[in-house]
């Protein structure tokens, strides 16, 4: 058997040019399959990691997925605001341990601004109940003296090069990242600059892309605004804003934590039946699953497509080996003449196919791992998806195995053909 493998290896080396191409195409297909699986896994991971320890998210009545998208992922806009009275009513429910109101809608150079309370830094958690950690500085104080204080997500600070003490201005409304359209387009709250007092440690969640300020600050910067525009002739200086009532009357949504998670349906029902205004409460886990079910179709299509790519490259393996049979007629016939049986010829060709597939699949897996390592930071920064260069998952092993198995099966086709070729056929010269 060893001798046969050696012969297979040497024969393959003789035709290395063609076979290298096949190895390359199998490697690309494997890399695509494994890379996609990694991406799929990690996107799902990023999704489920983005919120933890929050039992309900309360917002204006819309779809659960929509509420989840704008309250947690800052994707899309809120359909409506909810009143602080509603949030207080939920907070007063006997099963509720804490509520953290959040107000969205403003931005800073494409990064969403989140107005919230100091409780956000205490209660909001991600991943496996990991709390937010300040890498530098402190959280905003939430008092009137610290009205214009901002805490940056890790990515905001890194991308814009901000440090503690940096003065920033917020923009009314949302603007796509990188779209620094300039003074004409931007509705800046330039009269009330904020000071960066803290930078959060990286979380790999949408928090990294967010600028956090207090709810009162959100009220303050909109004091001299009415009907969606600055009131003409009215300007309230930053210092004077403190004299007005800055109690928020409306927020975008609220995160709710319960004393006992078993009560979650009761609180959800309480919120749904709240009579003063239409509210919606979603369980983050359920909404995430719904979201994933909606995204899952495209995801499966991607996987099917990379499966097809793998199929095509295996077909090319069969084609190359089959085409090679013609020129190898003599070689095989010589083997037969020195005593190799048809079984040996079959084994020879099967071994060659297996070797080619194995090296291709290994090369592909290595390439996928390399790509994850190389592109990881870029993907994290650009899309907020943390790619993990960890040991292969069960699914990845399964895909790897499937490629190997398919390759071996495919190489049986030329093997079978060679098996059927008679000795005389190879030795009879044709013109």
């Amino acid at each position, binding site marked *: 058997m060893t001798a046969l493998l050696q012969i297979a290896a040497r024969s393959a080396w003789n035709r290395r040019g063609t076979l290298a191409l096949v190895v390359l195409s199998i490697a690309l297909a494997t890399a695509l399959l494994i890379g996609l699986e990694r991406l799929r896994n990690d996107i799902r991971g990023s999704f489920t990691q983005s919120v933890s320890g929050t039992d309900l998210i309360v917002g204006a009545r819309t779809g659960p997925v929509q509420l989840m998208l704008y309250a947690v992922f800052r994707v899309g806009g809120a359909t409506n605001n909810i009143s602080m009275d509603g949030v207080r009513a939920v907070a007063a429910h006997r*099963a509720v341990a804490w509520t953290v109101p959040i107000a969205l809608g403003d931005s800073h150079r494409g990064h969403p601004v989140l107005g919230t309370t100091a409780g956000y830094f205490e209660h909001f958690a991600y991943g*496996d109940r990991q709390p937010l950690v300040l890498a530098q500085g402190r959280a905003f104080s939430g008092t009137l003296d610290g009205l214009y204080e901002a805490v940056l997500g890790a990515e905001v600070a890194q991308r814009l090069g901000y440090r503690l003490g940096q003065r920033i201005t917020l923009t009314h409304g949302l603007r796509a990242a990188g779209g620094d359209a300039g003074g004409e387009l931007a509705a800046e709250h330039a009269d009330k600059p904020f000071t960066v007092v803290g930078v959060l440690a990286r979380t790999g969640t949408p928090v990294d892309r967010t600028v956090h300020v207090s709810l009162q600050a959100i009220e303050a910067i909109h004091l001299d605004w009415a009907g969606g525009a600055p009131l003409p002739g009215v300007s309230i200086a930053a210092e004077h804003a403190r004299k007005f009532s800055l109690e928020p009357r409306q927020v975008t949504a609220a995160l709710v934590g319960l004393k006992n998670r*078993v009560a979650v349906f*009761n609180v959800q029902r309480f919120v749904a039946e709240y009579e003063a205004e239409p509210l919606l409460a979603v*369980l983050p886990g359920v909404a995430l699953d719904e979201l994933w079910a909606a995204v899952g179709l495209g995801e499966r299509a991607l996987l099917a497509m990379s499966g097809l790519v793998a199929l095509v490259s295996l077909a090319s393996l069969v084609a190359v080996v089959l085409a090679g049979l013609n020129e190898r007629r003599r070689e095989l016939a010589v083997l037969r003449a020195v005593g190799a049986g048809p079984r040996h010829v079959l084994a020879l060709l099967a071994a060659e196919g297996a070797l080619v597939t194995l090296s291709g699949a290994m090369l592909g897996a290595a390439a996928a791992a390399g790509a994850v390592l190389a592109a990881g930071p870029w993907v994290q920064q650009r899309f907020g998806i943390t790619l993990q260069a960890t040991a292969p998952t069960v699914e990845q092993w399964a895909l790897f195995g499937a490629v190997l198995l398919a390759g071996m099966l495919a190489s049986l086709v030329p093997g079978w053909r060679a098996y059927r070729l008679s000795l005389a056929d190879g030795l009879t010269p044709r013109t």
Partner: protein
Amino acid sequence: MTRVFLSLAVLLGLAGTATAQAPAGVPAMKPPLAAPGAAGVAAKPGEPRTITWEALVPADWDPFKDFKGIDFQMLDDGDPRANEWLKKMRQAWDDAPVNPALVGQVVRIPGFVVPLEDSKEGLKEFLLVPYFGACIHSPPPPANQIIHVLPNPPVKGVRSMDTVWISGKLTTGKTDTYMGASSYRIEATQVAPYKEPAR
């Protein structure tokens, strides 16, 4: 008003069936997710006992007791008492007690998953409920028809509203909280997909 009236009737109807089925292990009707053998079948030693959701209701619990002597037939449309009683009924369901006879036992029970805490290793916390859509429909199931499950190790590949068998020791949650006395909790050692029993 008709809606309130209907809900009241539904709640009371539920209460009726619960009391009728009250003796643990002797379900009056086939539950939506019944074990192939009926509840209360004596398990082999060392093996978890397969129970049904009815068994989780204590035999002597009567949600009806505060409503004795009230003739609901005489309620007119718009009667303010209807709403009040409805709220009281809801309260009774929210405070539904656990069955002390089952606490501490190793049990096996099927149900639907409502995910709570997902991590990289898999689902770490979920609620097990007896019927599909228990979190969306009204009214929510009573306190003793929800089990807080903490699988160990975390389970992978289980999504919202998947049906599973869980087995583990049935305990009660923290006592000082919302759900009246206490609520069920299982630190499940095993979570397996549920398969429809052969009929």
